[in-house]
């Protein structure tokens, strides 16, 4: 059991090259803030990238930032904020939900987990902002993809392939992201006391207007009581965020108020309070209770999600709240059993999507596919892609799926013990 802590890309390269030659599996970590997501590690050694840190290029006028993969996200966000810029995809902080500290996590982890936040509706996720990478594949070969300009279609986009790969294809050493100006101000309009289906209709109406709503969430009881220090009370809150230049935000909020005047009681949440509230929505604060009871992150067509939740409520003790206009559903299973088959069957029944078991005790994560099992042809393609990057299965083996890299892996064998 060895921990490698390289401080430069060359040492990452020699470490992975050694591991490839020895067929020695490596667990790849940054700060370890998302270590609890995925199947428990089966790696003998650890490759710790937290010392591979530092911003290497930042040109605000070019809207571009490059950093070594282990650079703390917090450091990058602070640097950007000094120039009134940001990572517009608003990467969430899994720390509190997984029982860790907040403010941890590296930029490499942001890409590997394809993080995003409430603004995903308008601005996309990490995959939509990554411009280029330098990486070392599981073959022990260094390669690059993309570049440092915001518009580029030269060759295959291997940078996007890193997004949501959870360190199983290659070890990124340097990443380049597009950055964008921070909005001058923001205001949230809250519609109160709506049932889930009425909330879905109100959010669809708001998003279908020209008010340019950048985030839309619905917090039913009891989730609503666990944000803003309880200041929202216990009535359900349907939140619509409007960002931009001052006069524009005021105009668009009024437009929304007019549009939703019959939907329910309306409240405005201004500036800093709005920002704080959306951070809590982003970080799944309502379920960050320090426990390891199961939490699902479910992605569905925005207007369909609440039907699935309603059906699930009839069969299991569950708490839910919605982000992305209802397209991101956070589920906390009260009884302790993740009910994986039930959750995934209902997601399929109500229009499809996928469910990731982002929090659960290790025994559950070892026994249940944490990531959505794929249909056989797609699973085989994914396995072939994995094998082209990491033929010996030395990078985070077993984290995304049980077993090796056999192209025969399919839904039927997912979750089998290794």
């Amino acid at each position, binding site marked *: 059991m060895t921990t490698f802590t*390289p401080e430069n890309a060359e040492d990452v390269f020699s470490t992975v090259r050694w591991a490839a030659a020895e067929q020695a599996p490596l667990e790849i970590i940054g700060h370890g803030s998302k270590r609890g997501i995925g199947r428990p590690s089966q790696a003998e050694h650890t490759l710790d990238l937290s010392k591979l840190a530092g911003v290497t290029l930042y040109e605000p006028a070019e809207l571009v930032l490059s950093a070594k993969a282990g650079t703390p996200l917090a450091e990058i966000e602070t640097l950007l904020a000094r120039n009134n810029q940001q990572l517009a995809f608003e990467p969430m902080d899994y720390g509190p939900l997984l029982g860790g500290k907040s403010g941890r996590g590296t930029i490499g982890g942001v890409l590997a987990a394809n993080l995003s936040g409430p603004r995903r509706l308008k601005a996309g996720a990490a995959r939509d902002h990554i411009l280029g990478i330098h990486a070392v594949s599981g073959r022990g070969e260094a390669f690059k993809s993309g570049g440092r300009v915001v518009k580029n279609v030269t*060759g295959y986009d291997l940078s996007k392939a890193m997004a949501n790969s959870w360190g199983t294809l290659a070890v990124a050493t340097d990443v380049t992201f597009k950055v964008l*100006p921070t909005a001058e101000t923001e205001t949230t309009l809250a519609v109160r006391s709506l049932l889930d289906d009425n909330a879905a209709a109100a959010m669809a109406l708001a998003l279908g207007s020209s008010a340019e709503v950048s985030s839309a969430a619905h917090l039913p009881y009891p989730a609503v009581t666990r944000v803003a220090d309880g200041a929202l009370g216990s009535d359900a809150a349907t939140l619509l965020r409007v960002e931009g230049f001052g006069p524009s935000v005021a105009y668009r909020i009024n437009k929304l108020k007019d549009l939703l005047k019959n939907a329910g009681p309306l409240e405005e949440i201004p500036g800093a309070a709005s920002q704080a509230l959306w951070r809590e929505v982003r970080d799944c604060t309502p379920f960050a209770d320090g426990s390891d009871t199961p939490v699902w992150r479910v992605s569905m067509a925005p207007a369909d999600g609440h039907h699935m939740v309603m059906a699930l409520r009839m069969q299991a003790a569950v708490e839910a709240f919605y982000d992305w206009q209802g397209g991101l559903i956070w589920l906390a299973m009260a009884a302790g059993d993740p009910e994986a088959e039930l959750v995934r069957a209902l997601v399929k029944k109500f229009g499809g999507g996928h469910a990731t078991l982002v929090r659960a005790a290790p025994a559950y994560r070892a026994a249940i596919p944490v990531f959505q099992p794929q249909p056989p042809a797609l699973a085989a393609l994914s396995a072939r892609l994995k094998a082209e990057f990491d033929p010996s299965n030395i990078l985070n083996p077993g984290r995304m799926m049980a077993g090796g890299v056999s192209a025969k892996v399919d839904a039927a064998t997912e979750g089998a013990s290794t």
Partner: protein
Amino acid sequence: MTGLAMPKPDAATLGRRAEIVADMRIIVPGEGVVDAVNEMRAFESDGLTAYRQLPLVVVLPETVAQVSRVLKYCNERNIRVVPRGSGTSLSGGALPLEDAVLLVMSRFNRILEIDFPNRTVVAQPGVTNLGITTAVEQEGFYYAPDPSSQIACSIGGNVAENSGGVHCLKYGLTANNVLGIEMVLMDGEVIRLGGKHLDSEGYDLLGVMTGSEGLLGVVTEVTVRILKKPETARALLIAFPTSEQGGQCVADIIGAGIIPGGMEMMDRPAIHAAEDFVHAGYPLDCEALLIVELDGPAVEVDHLIGLVEKIAIDNGSTTCRISQSEQERLTFWAGRKAAFPAVGRISPDYYCMDGTIPRKELPRVLAGMRELSEQYGLRVANVFHAGDGNLHPLILYDANIPGELDKAEAFGSDILRLCVKVGGVLTGEHGVGVEKRDLMPEMFNQADLDQQMRVKCAFDPNHLLNPGKVFPQLRRCAELGRMHVHRGQVAFPDIPRF
């Protein structure tokens, strides 16, 4: 065809042509198989008209099952396949091969579903880019990416090329606006990626497919996100005595936190050609002309116009006009949108390039281009997506003068080398295709290209789908897959561990 090496035609396939055509007619009955030379002429090139080649046979399937059977048939018999949408590629992505089936997706031309609550449209791949907007514009929605060929180019082709347009700094490329696809692999397997939900599970194969130039799979269905149209749009027409001032103005606009809906720049030759053609009222005594379009609610647009006007004046603009009507806004754009045909009027032929550079390098790249222009004795006009650094030099030449096309291509290659040298890339939105294929080593080393080709191996291990595009030399998958073990030679003891 100039000196471009394409994969050697397979004699066995050419010899079996009659049998293959007959089998295609069984799979795709009716009018869906074209094998007469005079009828295949319509398919012999795409938007890169300097390159022409008749295919083995043209097949126009109508159903996913037919696409699957054609690909499976070809895969089992080692027959190459070139997919084609509307044939508007500017990089030769749909250039036929002599021994390949040309799989034309134009009969997949229906919109399958419009879903306003989820703001998505599900379309077959042959639907035009503009066709999606047309289907939803009555309700005030549109599809954001707008390549200049949008009236003709297909949404399936947009996925293959990751198409952009003038609005992509604010609204993103195709990759940022496509939520899901259905595709058929070379072995006939039908696979769905994503859907109406916002993120797909597992590896981002949708991201890999977008911009893969028809080498990985054939797209048979596309789900896109649509947006509500902005309430208003207004534009500023700003002239500068130097390109440096124009470039600084763009940097300052972005530095002020403003991301315009569109921001285009033209150089002196492009301004003059456009003005002579459409009489848009462009000032002619300037080196750089900037069109900045702001969209959103009127109150926001008015606010930002004031800010941009001040930035322009502070940077020494000699003209700064603000559109006072929709008609005037369209007039500002008329010259820019007609820039290509305008250049076509002053030269028998022109060759459109597509590099991207870090914006601050614009003066250096323009100066380098002027030098190259003198060196090659060919004129060049520039239009520039200024917000994202995407440069379209138009090289003027006469194909009837022997050797001039070769000279124009050499000039173009030197421009792209210059783009890479200053930190840019070979192509911002037109794709590599055959056009920039042999320049790939300017940007990527062999290890970079090998890893890209390994991705190809995961999808199409026999290299049957659109070979001869993107990669200068396709290496066999078995060779690419071989592991070079460095056991015992690695400087392992130097690695800090604890």
